[in-house]
């Protein structure tokens, strides 16, 4: 009984909230501003091309992805660390 209350119930609630959000999100495509995004996206090539076919292509793609991830995750990580450090210093 405890297992249902502690794990199954929360999982069901999360799934229901997710389903409600997904239901809402689908209407975004019908919004008036969606047409402009659709038109510009249709004329833009996809950001991700074909998968690497050999080891050197794979290594280049991996290096590019690593740099991208380092910037996108690492930068906010470092900024937050600095802010937290400063706030904790002010507190003490």
């Amino acid at each position, binding site marked *: 009984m405890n297992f249902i209350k*502690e*794990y199954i119930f*929360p*999982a069901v609630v*999360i*799934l229901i909230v*997710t389903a409600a*959000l*997904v239901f809402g*999100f*689908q209407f*975004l*495509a019908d919004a008036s501003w*969606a047409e402009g*995004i*659709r038109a*510009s*996206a*249709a004329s*833009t090539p*996809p*950001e*991700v*091309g*074909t*998968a*690497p076919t050999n080891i050197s292509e*794979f290594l280049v*793609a*991996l290096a*590019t*992805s*690593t740099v991208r*991830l380092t910037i*996108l*995750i*690492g*930068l*906010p*990580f470092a*900024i*937050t*660390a600095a802010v*937290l450090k400063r*706030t904790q210093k002010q507190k003490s």
Partner: protein
Amino acid sequence: MQSTDKKFSLTQFKLFLDLVVLVLFIAINIPGATGIPNHEWVSFIFALPFLIHLTLNWKWIVSVFARLFKKLPGETRFNQIWDSVLFLLMIFVSFSGAVLSETVLPALGIHIEIDPFWRSLHTGMANLLLLMFGVHFMMHWKWIVSNFNRYILKKA
């Protein structure tokens, strides 16, 4: 006979699960190296550990939302807002990715006409998600490090 400290605690399970979530999250976010089909399969697999991650943190979610209009420590309030937005964004990126599926959904017999609108939003929001994840990761860094030291490196 098993001693108490050898038992696999909930915290240990959460730590291992978070590591799995992290590895899958990184694997999803390098589609240039893995290719779109692998990106899609890993993304669909990711849904399960992500759901368990939220379920295991349910007590925290409920306790914080029960005090929605009450006074909360600054860091807790920040985490409450940030994690909620992160959840919304995660669902949005997952949904916009799912409707762009060229491999998984067709393999499951579901065929959807791909709308470029979702492609544009999926790429942009996925980048925003990474930025937000960096902050989320740092906000829980202390918990990660202390439990990593305790359970993986076996430091006291």
